[in-house]
């Protein structure tokens, strides 16, 4: 087929040498003409038809970052010239991922496939390799746990690695889930216990993946198991060590609103249900054995060993699932909300812990009160179960989300958890006023819109308009904003402000992506292979993404994605073949395969 190739770019792309691709394309078989039309060319169907006619072109390939943009005019030109208008092929650099280190080779392959008339995805099939049965899961939040249980229940071995001292992730911190208001722990804890007891799951808490080698189907992974210093099997969680420990630091599990000791258990239902020592804060470890050591002496089971060292283990796995989750945006970056300065401005996670029955106030919603810290002799704002309850609570949506000064993306869960907070406030403090300040209400899921209606009926004031500032006037917090619907400015006193902070990739995501050789999108989340067709695969074979680490999503979506990943992993194991690395397929291989497909 006599082919004409036209290069048309929509945007400037300095990383791609279009001239080199054009030179390569000119040498492809049956290619009559190659033309570079530049960026956003003004095309005229009649002129193009003349070109088609003079060259007697039977097939046209439009090559560029977004060639579909130019397709109509070329189709019209083909029709005008009396040729088959269906023979307009697209060679899309952007769609098929001509980016990164392999840009040029990939772009050449894309053009070649289009010129041969073979769909790119058909021509690029990485070779299959035998696969190891073990699966590594990084991150033991709800997504990691779900995937681990699905795979282990199918009888395949799983190694579940978690950075924190317990599994459960953020979901373990929540009180209720939206929109059903189920008890979060009631759903999660049985799953956590099953993980601990499952014979096919090897659980490594307090551990991090530090190196990866090998190829899809048989990766060698190095895992650093940080010293726990407490014997997991012997510990009976009697709490005596914590009582004698002199060090107090902010509790990660309680989002910083409560304090814990240097030897601690994150929360009573932690899995594994054993204490651990925070080496960075332990006096004994920091002084190299010169100070303290009280917990060792007091432990009735003699299971604490403060001299234990970190250990590095190496395992061989076939598939890897990344389920590293997220962190919340630091609210003190946003000056005008006064977080960190005004004591009763809380982030979403802090409020989750405050309202949680296992939280520091036993689930009572109170404002902070001033208490004297005996150690530092300073007055501090702390939560006290007997503190005063707030009379009015303002919940502010889109804090650091949909805002080009922070994150331009929508964090997707904030609208719904904010509505849940409004419900919890109204449920626990029926007399309190509750205000929701939103820009757009994104109640997109099953039962979400109904939940929104329910909240409105419960008496929460839902105000459309972002709050501009939280200030303090004579000891009273004031919220300033605009009510867009009523078209008026508002300023009124509140006792507590909850910031629906946006979500960001978990810390360490960048290092992990570099170590695994995976790409991330511009916001820092892991990139999936194809947003619509293969949402859990990555560019690298046998590595999958599940849950929040790919993009913000709610619990149902994270669980669904985890199960989908498990299906992919199981199919890879049961077929005995892992799918190779797409990026490793060379240009000549793609060309050869395209040629053979064309011959068929």
């Amino acid at each position, binding site marked *: 087929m006599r082919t004409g190739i036209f290069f048309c770019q929509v945007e400037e792309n300095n990383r791609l040498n279009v001239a080199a691709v054009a030179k390569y394309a000119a040498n492809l078989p049956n290619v009559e003409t190659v033309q570079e039309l530049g960026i956003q060319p003004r095309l005229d169907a009649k002129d193009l038809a003349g070109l088609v006619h003079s060259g007697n072109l039977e097939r046209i390939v439009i090559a560029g970052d977004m060639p579909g943009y130019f397709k109509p005019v070329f189709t019209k030109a083909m029709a005008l010239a009396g040729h088959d208008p269906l023979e307009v092929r697209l060679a899309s650099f952007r769609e098929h991922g001509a980016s990164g280190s392999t840009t040029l080779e990939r772009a050449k392959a894309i053009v070649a496939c289009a010129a041969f008339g073979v769909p790119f995805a058909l021509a690029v099939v990485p070779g299959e390799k035998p696969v190891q049965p073990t699966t590594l899961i990084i991150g033991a939040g709800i997504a990691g746990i779900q995937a681990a249980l699905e795979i282990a229940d199918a009888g395949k071995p799983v190694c579940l690695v978690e950075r924190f001292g317990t599994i459960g992730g953020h979901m373990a911190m929540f009180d209720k889930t939206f929109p059903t208001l189920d008890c979060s722990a009631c759903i999660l804890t049985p799953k956590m216990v099953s993980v601990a007891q499952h014979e096919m799951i090897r659980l490594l808490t307090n551990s991090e993946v530090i190196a990866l080698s090998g190829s899809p189907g048989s990766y060698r992974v190095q895992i650093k198991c940080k010293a726990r210093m407490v014997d997991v099997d012997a510990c009976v969680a009697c709490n005596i060590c914590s009582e004698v420990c002199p060090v107090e630091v902010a509790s990660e599990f309680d989002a910083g609103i409560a304090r814990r000791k240097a030897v601690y258990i994150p929360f009573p239902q932690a899995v594994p249900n054993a204490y651990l020592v925070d080496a960075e804060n332990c006096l004994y470890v920091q002084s190299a054995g010169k100070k303290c050591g009280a917990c060792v002496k007091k432990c009735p089971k003699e299971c604490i060993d403060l001299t234990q060292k970190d250990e590095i283990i190496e395992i061989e796995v076939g598939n890897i699932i990344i389920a590293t989750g997220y962190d919340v945006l630091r609210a003190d970056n946003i*000056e*005008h909300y006064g977080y960190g300065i005004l004591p009763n401005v809380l982030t979403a996670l802090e409020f989750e812990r405050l309202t949680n029955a296992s939280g520091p106030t036993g689930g009572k919603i109170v404002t902070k009160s001033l208490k004297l810290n005996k150690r530092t002799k300073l007055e501090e704002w702390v939560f006290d179960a007997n503190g005063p309850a707030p009379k009015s609570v303002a919940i502010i949506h889109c804090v650091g989300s949909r805002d080009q000064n922070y994150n331009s993306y929508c964090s997707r869960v904030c609208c719904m958890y904010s509505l849940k907070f409004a419900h919890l406030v109204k449920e626990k403090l029926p007399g309190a006023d509750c205000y929701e300040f939103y820009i757009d209400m994104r109640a997109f899921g099953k039962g979400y819109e109904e939940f929104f209606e329910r909240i409105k009926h419960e008496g929460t004031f839902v105000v459309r308009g972002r*709050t*501009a500032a939280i200030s303090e006037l004579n000891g009273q917090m004031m919220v300033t904003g*605009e*009510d*867009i619907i009523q*078209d008026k400015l508002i300023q009124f006193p509140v006792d507590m402000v909850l910031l629906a902070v946006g979500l960001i990739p978990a810390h360490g995501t960048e290092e992990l992506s570099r170590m695994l050789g995976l790409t991330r999108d511009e916001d820092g989340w892991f990139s999936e292979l194809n947003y619509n067709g293969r949402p859990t695969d990555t560019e690298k074979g046998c590595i999958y993404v599940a849950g929040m680490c790919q993009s913000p999503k709610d619990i149902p979506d994270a669980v669904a994605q985890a199960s989908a990943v498990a299906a992919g992993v199981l199919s890879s194991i049961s077929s005995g073949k892992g799918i190779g690395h797409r990026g490793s397929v060379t240009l000549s291989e793609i060309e050869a395969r395209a040629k053979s497909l064309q011959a068929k």
Partner: protein
Amino acid sequence: MAIRVNPKIIDDLEGYGAEDVHLCYHCGNCSAVCPHADEFNVFPRRPMRYLQMGLERKLETSLEPWLCYYCGQCSDQCPRGAEPGETMMSLRRWLISRYDITGIARLFFKSTKVELAAVIIVALLTGIFFLGFGFWQGDINVYDGSNAFLPSSFIHNFDLALGFLVALFIGLSAFRFWWFSMGGKSAVPIPWWLYIKKVYLLPWHFFTQKRFADCEKETTRRIYLPWLAHLGLMLGYITMLFIVMVFVKQLQAGPEINWSVHVFGYLASLGLLIGAVYMLCGRLKKNRTQYQRSHGSDWIFLVLLFIIALTGVTQHILHRSGLLLAANIVYIVHLMVVVPWLLRMPFTKWAHMFLRPLGMYFSAVRNEALARQKSGIETTVQARKVA
């Protein structure tokens, strides 16, 4: 009443500087953060909405742009980068061109080249005129007195004629401003005595620019420098205009220094120079939000002002040091810049010197009228309830 929509207005405003209005998603952050938004003037969001909806008539009658001194807090916090502050600035330019009946303002704002060409042509004409006049009747080596190259009595009359012309156009614009916002086109009936009750606001806003200082009040780091520079520039300008219009004879007489007049001249020159340099540096460095984007007319204004102040001071020094030929030459250059600069005043942003205090005065009058109307309605409703 039918509402006429002009969907092109948002594109039209691009020529005046506001390019990102379409990005706004109406979160209301800008209005809430603005130190000057009040019950009746919820801005900048409301004008942004009018622009997106193409409500040209509403924009024409709105006073909100005149209440803004462009502190830039709205633009800093805008989550969409829609530049509400710049939009208010552009609306002021647009309104000036709307109030102006000649159409020159629109031409100047739309094309800096046209404005520059007009300035150069007028400057050349002025130069030729004064050179011809000087050689025809005087001696280039004489600065003041009866045989002066440019006799002060003539300059005085020329100033008055020029001042009259400028005042005429400003007056016309001001009338149209009133007509759009308060008079025929306004929907709010305003009792005449409210105008008298609030008239003290005109000199108050004109001479103190108190609201500009208020812009800083709510920021975390209060720096009153922009306000001081703005005030210094404006007061210097007004003082200079006044003494040149009225006391040009005393100003030009020499070589001894007539302190009763000159002291004002020195202070005014200082204000002008410092203000102009501060603003030029700010716009070059783009160190504050309001200096991020400069329209061509802003540059023309500031550069010409700087030249005027500089040549004014130079000719004064040259005259006192006896270099009369040089003083006369600099004087010609001074006039070549002053004449186009004054003439362009009613058609450019500089008209805001008069229009802004006027807008604030109108706004105070209208607010009170609205408040009275509202309380009137409330009393009627209460009366009905009682009955």
